[in-house]
């Protein structure tokens, strides 16, 4: 089932990137923009949340938590501030989908922000955009200014007062730290501190930014909101994968469309929108226009490196939120695919991942701080042909014992480390064995 009418890329030409221009306020309104906000303003806030819950929209930032549910966790207003933090940190390797929305159709996300603020009684919103997105930030700041000037935010907001205050939206510039994409690290950074993830509970819904109730959503999640409010949850659920037979309604499904990124040696790399549940092979074949001449598919990181790797025999993997169970990976992640060709060594890929995590670990938890660097050293040695079989065993043990799921770390960065390295080891064990297979004499000792 091909996607006939895009939702997120409604105003963005697919294909040739050179044709893309930013849709500013006037262009956005002329093509039906901010109609969903007007509809939301006329609705009871609780009804907006009900609609979002009914749509079963799951977060597009990586964890896939149902957005409507998240919105409903906030305590009732008590007179103090309530915040929305928009996660535009997008630093997961190989992920470059949010930048497309920010750069070409920023008002869709801004409309989603306004609707979320209305629904959850949030008076102030911050878009936390990663420091390296320079021209994107300039575009976003201009679009935000337009939204203030046109009565979306500010004294003359068409939403009136929210939570007893003037609704406001600001752009927060990050400063180069992957970990600030983790929601509580993002909040710390917003408060002007180092991006150190917090222990949970308390969860941000209760005590988030500046110790006040806070909603945190990804850019793409919020950009999907206007279409749901305008057309209804039932319409939204005609996209994506239907709930499998016999699965109870409280188990979230994979409805809707998704932005997919493709990078690596394909003929047409870029960001594309399609139904959730597209096959990896179809994504590479139809959108990516196939592998480049002379390149053969070996593996793929399907959702950023933190979700783990898909093996050569998983070329037909179905990309939806249930991919974890089916394919032995952590989850769907960001759905931005890096294609790895036959001529690239998986040992080199594992080493690259380990270097990434050792560089980006915030250093609070010993297994993450020491483990990632240790893994990097082991993998550097193995890649240089100096490794031993004992190194491989040690690496497996190391990668298997870190993460917030075994309960040894504060945040999920260590789970990413674990899944990336562990799945590469599992699925490409031969390549590692080949690297360490030759016993050699060093001095008199057999290594």
């Amino acid at each position, binding site marked *: 089932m091909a996607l006939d009418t895009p939702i997120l890329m409604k105003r963005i030409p697919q294909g040739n*990137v050179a044709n893309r221009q930013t849709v500013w306020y006037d262009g956005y309104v002329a093509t039906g923009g901010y109609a969903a906000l007007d509809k939301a303003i006329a609705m009871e806030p609780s009804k907006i949340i009900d609609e979002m819950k009914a749509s079963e929209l799951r977060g597009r930032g990586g964890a896939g938590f149902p957005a409507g549910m998240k919105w409903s966790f906030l305590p009732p207003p008590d007179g103090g*501030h309530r915040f929305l933090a928009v996660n535009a940190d*997008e*630093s*997961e*390797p*190989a*992920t*470059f989908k949010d*930048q497309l929305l920010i750069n070409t159709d920023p008002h869709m996300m801004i409309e989603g922000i306004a609707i979320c603020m209305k629904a959850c009684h949030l008076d*102030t919103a*911050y878009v936390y955009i990663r*420091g*390296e*997105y*320079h*021209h994107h930030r300039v575009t976003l700041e201009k679009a935000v200014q337009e939204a203030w000037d046109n009565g979306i935010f500010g004294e003359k907001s068409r939403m009136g007062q929210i939570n007893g205050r003037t609704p*406001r939206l*600001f752009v*927060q*510039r*990050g*400063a*180069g*730290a*992957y970990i600030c994409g983790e929601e509580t690290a993002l909040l710390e*950074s*917003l*408060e*002007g*501190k*180092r*991006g150190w993830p917090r222990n949970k509970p308390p969860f941000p819904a209760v005590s988030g930014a*500046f110790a*006040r109730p806070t909603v945190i959503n990804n850019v793409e999640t919020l950009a999907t909101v206007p279409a749901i409010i305008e057309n209804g949850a039932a319409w939204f659920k005609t996209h994506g994968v239907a709930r499998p037979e016999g699965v109870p309604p409280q188990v979230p499904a994979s409805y809707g469309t998704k932005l997919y990124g*493709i*990078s*690596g*040696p394909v003929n047409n*790399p*870029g960001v594309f929108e399609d139904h959730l549940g597209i096959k990896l092979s179809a994504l590479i074949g139809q959108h990516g226009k196939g592998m480049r001449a002379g390149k053969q598919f070996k593996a793929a*990181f399907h959702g950023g*490196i933190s979700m783990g790797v898909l093996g050569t025999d998983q070329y037909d993997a179905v990309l939806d939120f249930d991919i974890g169970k089916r394919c032995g990976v952590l989850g769907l992640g960001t759905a931005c695919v*890096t*294609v*790895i*060709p036959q001529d*690239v060594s998986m040992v*080199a*890929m594992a080493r*690259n*991942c380990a270097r*990434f995590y*050792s*560089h*980006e*670990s*915030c*250093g609070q938890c010993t297994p993450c*701080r020491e483990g990632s660097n240790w893994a990097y050293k082991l993998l550097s040695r193995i890649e240089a042909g100096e490794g031993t079989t004992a190194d491989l065993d040690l690496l497996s043990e190391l990668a298997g014992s870190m993460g917030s799921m075994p309960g040894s770390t504060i945040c999920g960065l260590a789970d990413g480390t674990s899944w990336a390295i562990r799945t590469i080891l599992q699925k490409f064990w031969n390549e590692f064995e080949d690297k360490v297979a030759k016993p050699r004499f060093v001095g008199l000792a057999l290594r």
Partner: protein
Amino acid sequence: MAWITQKSSAPNDLGRRAVPYLAPATKDRFERDFIPRYPTRRGALIQVLHAIQDEVGWLPMQAMEEVAQFIGITPSQVVDTATFYEEFFFKPRGKYTLWVCQSVSCEIMGSTALQGKISEKLGIHHGETTPDGKFTLMHVECIGACGGAPCALCNHKLHENLSSDNVDAILDSLP
């Protein structure tokens, strides 16, 4: 960034200048543009540091002391926050900072050769600055332009689909 901080505090030039980095007009601007956005003054810290670095090129100790006073926190709190982030520099850097990506998509598409080529051409490695003060080279993790891998930022400008062949022309064209 993060915990692997090169202890740049040790060789830091604590030289002072008579002219403050935060002139009264600058303070007024921060007071108007950044402070009202947050319920605490410290919330504005990172935006203030960016504004100063955009102007000065790096963050001198004296500037961070002045920021501490302006925000109403201690200088060590400012340093604590600032040193966490990779984008902040605590010593002068080149006119152009090259941020060359080395994460998975870029490595697959040839960033290792690209980095080698740049180092050879400029005679510097990661974290170093050319003697003429023109270039500072940073090897960095994913900069979010993977469709155009290998990619790099030159100051605020993004360059995509780089190769050992076209990087020469780009570097040579910079004034």
